[in-house]
Protein backbone atom coordinates (compact mmCIF):
# COMPACT_ATOMS: atom_id res chain seq x y z
CA UNK A 1 0.00 0.00 0.00
CA UNK A 2 1.32 3.41 -1.00
CA UNK A 3 1.88 5.96 1.74
CA UNK A 4 -0.36 9.00 1.75
CA UNK A 5 1.44 11.96 0.19
CA UNK A 6 1.14 15.52 1.44
CA UNK A 7 -0.59 16.57 -1.77
CA UNK A 8 -3.21 13.82 -1.48
CA UNK A 9 -3.86 14.76 2.13
CA UNK A 10 -4.32 18.42 1.22
CA UNK A 11 -6.68 17.57 -1.62
CA UNK A 12 -8.74 15.28 0.60
CA UNK A 13 -8.95 17.87 3.35
CA UNK A 14 -9.86 20.54 0.78
CA UNK A 15 -12.71 18.40 -0.53
CA UNK A 16 -14.05 17.97 3.01
CA UNK A 17 -13.61 21.72 3.60
CA UNK A 18 -15.49 22.52 0.41
CA UNK A 19 -18.35 20.31 1.52
CA UNK A 20 -18.46 22.02 4.90
CA UNK A 21 -18.34 25.47 3.24
CA UNK A 22 -21.41 24.61 1.18
CA UNK A 23 -23.43 24.36 4.41
CA UNK A 24 -23.38 28.17 4.35
CA UNK A 25 -25.70 28.06 1.35
CA UNK A 26 -28.52 26.38 3.25
CA UNK A 27 -29.20 29.21 5.71
CA UNK A 28 -30.11 31.97 3.24
CA UNK A 29 -32.41 29.58 1.38
CA UNK A 30 -34.37 28.76 4.51
CA UNK A 31 -34.35 32.41 5.58
CA UNK A 32 -35.56 33.73 2.25
CA UNK A 33 -38.32 31.15 2.10
CA UNK A 34 -39.45 32.02 5.60
CA UNK A 35 -39.38 35.75 4.82
CA UNK A 36 -41.35 35.25 1.61
CA UNK A 37 -43.98 33.24 3.48
CA UNK A 38 -44.35 35.95 6.12
CA UNK A 39 -44.36 38.61 3.38
CA UNK A 40 -47.21 36.82 1.65
CA UNK A 41 -49.10 36.75 4.96
CA UNK A 42 -48.45 40.46 5.41
CA UNK A 43 -49.64 41.38 1.93
CA UNK A 44 -52.73 39.22 2.42
CA UNK A 45 -53.51 41.10 5.64
CA UNK A 46 -52.66 44.59 4.36
CA UNK A 47 -52.55 44.73 0.53
CA UNK A 48 -51.84 48.49 0.37
CA UNK A 49 -48.46 47.94 2.10
CA UNK A 50 -47.19 45.64 -0.66
CA UNK A 51 -44.58 48.13 -1.90
CA UNK A 52 -43.01 48.57 1.53
CA UNK A 53 -43.08 44.85 2.27
CA UNK A 54 -41.46 43.88 -1.03
CA UNK A 55 -38.85 46.65 -0.73
CA UNK A 56 -37.78 45.62 2.78
CA UNK A 57 -37.77 41.95 1.84
CA UNK A 58 -35.78 42.63 -1.33
CA UNK A 59 -33.00 44.46 0.51
CA UNK A 60 -32.89 41.89 3.31
CA UNK A 61 -32.84 38.96 0.93
CA UNK A 62 -30.09 40.52 -1.19
CA UNK A 63 -27.87 41.00 1.86
CA UNK A 64 -28.61 37.48 3.12
CA UNK A 65 -27.84 35.96 -0.25
CA UNK A 66 -24.31 37.35 -0.22
CA UNK A 67 -23.52 35.22 2.82
CA UNK A 68 -24.30 32.11 0.83
CA UNK A 69 -22.13 33.39 -2.02
CA UNK A 70 -19.15 33.66 0.36
CA UNK A 71 -19.44 29.96 1.19
CA UNK A 72 -19.80 29.08 -2.47
CA UNK A 73 -16.66 31.06 -3.37
CA UNK A 74 -14.64 29.32 -0.65
CA UNK A 75 -15.86 25.90 -1.77
CA UNK A 76 -15.15 26.49 -5.47
CA UNK A 77 -11.70 27.94 -4.78
CA UNK A 78 -10.83 24.93 -2.64
CA UNK A 79 -11.98 22.57 -5.38
CA UNK A 80 -10.76 24.22 -8.58
CA UNK A 81 -8.02 26.72 -7.70
CA UNK A 82 -6.60 25.36 -4.49
CA UNK A 83 -3.84 27.69 -3.27
CA UNK A 84 -2.67 25.24 -0.59
CA UNK A 85 -1.30 22.64 -3.03
CA UNK A 86 1.29 25.13 -4.30
CA UNK A 87 2.65 25.60 -0.79
CA UNK A 88 4.14 22.08 -0.72
Amino acid at each position, binding site marked *: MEPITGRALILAASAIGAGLAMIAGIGPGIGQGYAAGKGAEGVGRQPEAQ*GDIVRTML*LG*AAVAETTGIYGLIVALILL*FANPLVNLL
Partner: protein
Amino acid sequence: MDSVNQTQLKMLKNALLLNGLFCIIALVFLENPITFVVGVIFGTTFSLLNFRLLYLTLNKAVHMPPPKAQAYATSRYLLRYTITGIVIFISLKADYINILGTIAGLVSLKLVILKSELFNSKEYFKNIFKRKEER
Protein backbone atom coordinates in the same frame (compact mmCIF):
# COMPACT_ATOMS: atom_id res chain seq x y z
CA MET B 1 -42.63 55.20 -10.17
CA ASP B 2 -43.18 53.16 -7.02
CA SER B 3 -40.71 52.89 -4.15
CA VAL B 4 -39.46 49.42 -5.10
CA ASN B 5 -38.45 50.50 -8.59
CA GLN B 6 -36.85 53.65 -7.21
CA THR B 7 -34.86 51.56 -4.75
CA GLN B 8 -33.71 49.23 -7.53
CA LEU B 9 -32.64 52.15 -9.68
CA LYS B 10 -30.78 53.71 -6.77
CA MET B 11 -28.98 50.43 -6.01
CA LEU B 12 -28.07 50.02 -9.68
CA LYS B 13 -26.57 53.52 -9.88
CA ASN B 14 -24.66 53.15 -6.61
CA ALA B 15 -23.36 49.69 -7.55
CA LEU B 16 -22.12 51.01 -10.90
CA LEU B 17 -20.41 53.93 -9.12
CA LEU B 18 -18.73 51.65 -6.59
CA ASN B 19 -17.53 49.25 -9.25
CA GLY B 20 -16.28 52.15 -11.35
CA LEU B 21 -14.23 53.13 -8.31
CA PHE B 22 -12.90 49.56 -8.06
CA CYS B 23 -11.92 49.70 -11.73
CA ILE B 24 -10.13 53.05 -11.32
CA ILE B 25 -8.20 51.74 -8.29
CA ALA B 26 -7.27 48.61 -10.26
CA LEU B 27 -6.12 50.67 -13.26
CA VAL B 28 -3.87 52.76 -11.01
CA PHE B 29 -2.40 50.14 -8.70
CA LEU B 30 -2.44 46.73 -10.43
CA GLU B 31 0.14 45.41 -12.89
CA ASN B 32 -2.43 43.65 -15.06
CA PRO B 33 -5.65 45.63 -14.54
CA ILE B 34 -7.56 44.42 -17.61
CA THR B 35 -8.35 40.98 -16.20
CA PHE B 36 -9.50 42.57 -12.96
CA VAL B 37 -11.72 45.06 -14.80
CA VAL B 38 -13.22 42.25 -16.90
CA GLY B 39 -13.89 40.36 -13.66
CA VAL B 40 -15.56 43.38 -12.08
CA ILE B 41 -17.76 43.90 -15.14
CA PHE B 42 -18.66 40.20 -15.22
CA GLY B 43 -19.46 40.09 -11.50
CA THR B 44 -21.41 43.35 -11.49
CA THR B 45 -23.51 42.40 -14.49
CA PHE B 46 -24.45 39.12 -12.93
CA SER B 47 -25.04 40.69 -9.53
CA LEU B 48 -27.48 43.25 -10.91
CA LEU B 49 -29.33 40.65 -12.97
CA ASN B 50 -29.52 38.50 -9.85
CA PHE B 51 -31.01 41.42 -7.94
CA ARG B 52 -33.64 41.89 -10.62
CA LEU B 53 -34.45 38.17 -10.55
CA LEU B 54 -34.80 38.38 -6.77
CA TYR B 55 -37.27 41.24 -7.15
CA LEU B 56 -39.35 39.33 -9.70
CA THR B 57 -39.35 36.27 -7.44
CA LEU B 58 -40.45 38.17 -4.33
CA ASN B 59 -43.02 40.20 -6.22
CA LYS B 60 -44.60 36.98 -7.43
CA ALA B 61 -44.22 35.19 -4.09
CA VAL B 62 -46.19 37.77 -2.08
CA HIS B 63 -49.32 37.01 -4.12
CA MET B 64 -49.18 33.30 -3.34
CA PRO B 65 -50.49 31.43 -0.29
CA PRO B 66 -47.72 31.46 2.41
CA PRO B 67 -46.63 27.78 2.24
CA LYS B 68 -46.46 27.95 -1.56
CA ALA B 69 -44.58 31.27 -1.39
CA GLN B 70 -42.04 29.69 0.95
CA ALA B 71 -41.39 26.76 -1.37
CA TYR B 72 -41.29 29.03 -4.42
CA ALA B 73 -38.79 31.49 -2.89
CA THR B 74 -36.52 28.68 -1.71
CA SER B 75 -36.56 26.91 -5.08
CA ARG B 76 -35.78 30.15 -6.92
CA TYR B 77 -32.97 30.84 -4.44
CA LEU B 78 -31.40 27.50 -5.32
CA LEU B 79 -31.67 28.39 -9.01
CA ARG B 80 -29.89 31.72 -8.44
CA TYR B 81 -27.31 29.99 -6.27
CA THR B 82 -26.56 27.52 -9.05
CA ILE B 83 -26.15 30.34 -11.58
CA THR B 84 -23.81 32.13 -9.15
CA GLY B 85 -21.79 28.92 -8.88
CA ILE B 86 -21.51 28.73 -12.68
CA VAL B 87 -20.36 32.37 -12.83
CA ILE B 88 -17.67 31.82 -10.18
CA PHE B 89 -16.57 28.57 -11.84
CA ILE B 90 -16.19 30.32 -15.20
CA SER B 91 -14.14 33.12 -13.67
CA LEU B 92 -11.93 30.57 -11.90
CA LYS B 93 -11.28 28.63 -15.09
CA ALA B 94 -10.91 31.51 -17.56
CA ASP B 95 -7.46 33.10 -17.66
CA TYR B 96 -8.77 36.45 -18.87
CA ILE B 97 -11.03 36.96 -15.82
CA ASN B 98 -9.65 37.75 -12.38
CA ILE B 99 -11.58 35.93 -9.67
CA LEU B 100 -11.01 38.76 -7.17
CA GLY B 101 -12.66 41.17 -9.60
CA THR B 102 -15.64 38.87 -9.96
CA ILE B 103 -15.96 38.54 -6.19
CA ALA B 104 -15.75 42.33 -5.83
CA GLY B 105 -18.52 42.72 -8.41
CA LEU B 106 -20.72 40.10 -6.74
CA VAL B 107 -20.34 41.49 -3.24
CA SER B 108 -20.55 45.19 -4.16
CA LEU B 109 -24.35 45.14 -4.07
CA LYS B 110 -24.29 44.16 -0.40
CA LEU B 111 -21.92 47.02 0.39
CA VAL B 112 -24.19 49.44 -1.49
CA ILE B 113 -27.30 48.25 0.37
CA LEU B 114 -25.59 48.47 3.74
CA LYS B 115 -24.24 51.92 2.95
CA SER B 116 -27.49 53.38 1.65
CA GLU B 117 -29.97 51.74 4.04
CA LEU B 118 -28.14 51.12 7.30
CA PHE B 119 -25.10 53.36 7.63
CA ASN B 120 -26.74 56.42 6.07
CA SER B 121 -27.84 58.07 9.31
CA LYS B 122 -25.79 59.29 12.24
CA GLU B 123 -28.54 58.12 14.58
CA TYR B 124 -27.60 54.52 13.83
CA PHE B 125 -24.08 55.02 15.14
CA LYS B 126 -25.30 57.03 18.12
CA ASN B 127 -27.78 54.31 19.06
CA ILE B 128 -25.03 51.70 19.19
CA PHE B 129 -23.62 53.28 22.33
CA LYS B 130 -26.96 54.16 23.90
CA ARG B 131 -28.77 51.94 26.33
CA LYS B 132 -32.14 50.65 25.22
CA GLU B 133 -33.98 52.74 27.82
CA GLU B 134 -32.31 55.96 26.66
CA ARG B 135 -33.45 55.73 23.03
